[in-house]
């Protein structure tokens, strides 16, 4: 099937499949709520591959999402999201990458009683310790007015690339005690196994507390049961004063307990759990909504280490003007100041998004400029420049959107890189 003829057939089949699904949607939709979102991207760029320099790479991507069944109300529904890619120039640029992936595909059943939610299939689980893609079952339900229980189990999608799926498993859960929005305390547990051996086993605590003067304290701690130590402590306080929103935070990571010591921990992280390093960060940000048009922000973050004697600090500020709908003009300047010279850079960005530009037959025009200056050259270059310009138009009552953008980059990795992209977004609702 790798002959030119085979590739042509595969490519044709790929396009026919997507078109067929989109065109057949109205028929299928006769009996139930259906929403389809198709994002088709065609990129053109030049890259060095293992066989040639400056080879033209023309990947065609299709990101397809389908939601079928009860959507606006609770009940039974099916949800799907996945992508596929075909290089129209047959370069070997993607030879080590998969040509597509199912990101989720699950049946969902939910009832208002006790906020019951049941999912079966490939899904992304978030909550407490969980931040994983699984092939399995998850359940969440209220236990009376003060408690919430969620449990999940199945096969970890992240481990299916090595030695197959035999012996792989993931399960965990979270029990939450809350009193309206005044406090919430969650206890969670997660265990992952790979090829029959325990890869990772953790306990988690997360909480949010309403303190006096409108201060909200929240955070989380994670205890690694395999290495017997706290891997992460992260706590933040948020409060508002007039039009100002403040956030301060403190976080601490013990590398030996945070970077999972299992054999599946990928490079470049697995080496970090040796050496006894611990990192403590603190800082904050403030956002001032001066008016409905103007928004200002400032952020700072300090980094310190137990073993490494150096430290670092990041400072940034931003300004945004908001116009009608999504129209915006903004800018941001930041600097990373590490003790070591090769840990210093200055970053600046300016952007605009002109929504429904008057007098032009376009839905939007957008632009982006980014410039970074490095204290120490990277591959002989001490700065990088990136520019992007895009425009789009919408059709069929805004269900179809066509976008064209061009990017230029000159940086330590690319002397002069030009990339163009054509995007077609199609949304079908019934």
């Amino acid at each position: 099937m790798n002959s030119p003829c085979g590739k042509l057939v595969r490519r044709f089949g790929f396009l026919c499949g997507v078109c067929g699904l989109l065109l057949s949607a109205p028929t299928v939709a006769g009996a139930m709520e259906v929403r389809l979102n198709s994002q088709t991207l065609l990129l053109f760029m030049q890259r060095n591959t293992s066989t040639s320099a400056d080879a033209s790479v023309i990947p065609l991507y299709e990101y397809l999402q389908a939601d079928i069944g009860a959507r606006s109300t609770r009940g039974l529904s099916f949800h799907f999201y996945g992508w596929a890619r075909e290089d129209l120039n047959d370069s070997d640029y993607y030879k080590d990458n998969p040509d597509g992936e199912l990101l989720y595909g699950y049946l969902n059943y939910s009832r208002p009683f006790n906020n019951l939610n049941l999912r079966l299939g490939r899904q992304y689980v978030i909550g407490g310790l969980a931040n994983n893609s699984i092939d399995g079952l998850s359940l969440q339900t209220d236990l009376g007015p003060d408690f919430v229980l969620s449990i999940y189990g199945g096969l970890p999608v992240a481990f299916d690339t090595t030695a197959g799926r035999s012996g792989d498993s993931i399960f965990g859960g979270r029990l939450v005690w809350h009193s309206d929005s005044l406090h919430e305390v969650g206890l969670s547990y997660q265990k992952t196994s790979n090829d029959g051996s325990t890869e990772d086993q953790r306990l988690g605590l997360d909480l949010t507390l309403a303190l006096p003067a409108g201060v909200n304290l929240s955070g989380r701690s994670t205890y690694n049961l395999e290495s017997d130590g706290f891997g992460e402590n992260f706590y933040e306080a948020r409060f508002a004063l007039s039009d100002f929103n403040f956030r301060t935070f403190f976080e601490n990571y013990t590398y030996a307990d945070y970077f999972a010591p299992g054999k599946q921990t990928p490079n470049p992280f697995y080496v970090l759990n040796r050496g006894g390093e611990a990192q403590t960060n603190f800082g904050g940000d403030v956002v001032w909504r001066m008016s409905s048009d103007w928004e200002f922000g400032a952020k700072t973050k300090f980094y310190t280490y137990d073993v490494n004697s150096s430290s670092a600090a990041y400072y940034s500020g931003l300004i945004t003007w908001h116009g009608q709908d999504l129209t915006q003009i903004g800018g941001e300047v930041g600097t990373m100041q590490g003790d070591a010279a090769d840990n210093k850079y200055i970053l600046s960005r300016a952007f605009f998004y002109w929504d429904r530009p008057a007098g032009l037959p376009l839905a939007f025009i957008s632009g982006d400029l980014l410039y970074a200056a490095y204290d120490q050259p990277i591959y002989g270059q001490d700065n990088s420049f990136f520019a992007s310009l895009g425009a789009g138009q919408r059709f069929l009552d805004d269900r179809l959107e066509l976008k064209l953008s061009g990017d230029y980059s000159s940086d330590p990795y690319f002397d002069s890189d030009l990339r163009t992209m054509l995007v077609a977004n199609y949304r079908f609702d019934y």
Partner: protein
Amino acid sequence: MPRRPLLFSLLLLFSFLLLVACSVHDQGYSLPAQHPPEADLGRNRPTCTDCHEERGGPLAFADFNHTAYFAESHRNAAGRNVQVCNMCHQPSFCNTCHATGIELKPSVKNQSDTYSRTPHHGDYLSRHRIDGRIDPGSCFRCHGNPKAARTCAPCHG
């Protein structure tokens, strides 16, 4: 039957019965499946406390205000109550960043959406050498598994 498994089984059964007893006792606040469409949120980043009280009701709405830095600081709020996110965002929206393999980084996949402060904007390949040295935990949260680390593999092995 050995004593320890028996005790464990009884404890598990007791816990299950306790949970069932709790669940039929009373209902808490039930989140709607979707944010009410009649409340037009507009297309800009929403500030929940423009309409809702900061706290005191069923949710701490102030935690979900989409400030200019919300993209960088939503982890705590989303990790506690992802159902609130799901009232407006499909899981595919989260998968733009949080996925085992999406191939295109968010700022490329949505290149012309310049108003969104997507991570890894522009030439992040160069900056990641510095950010990764200073704060490797920030990389690990998304790239710390074999599939999501495929983007690291060409250089880091």
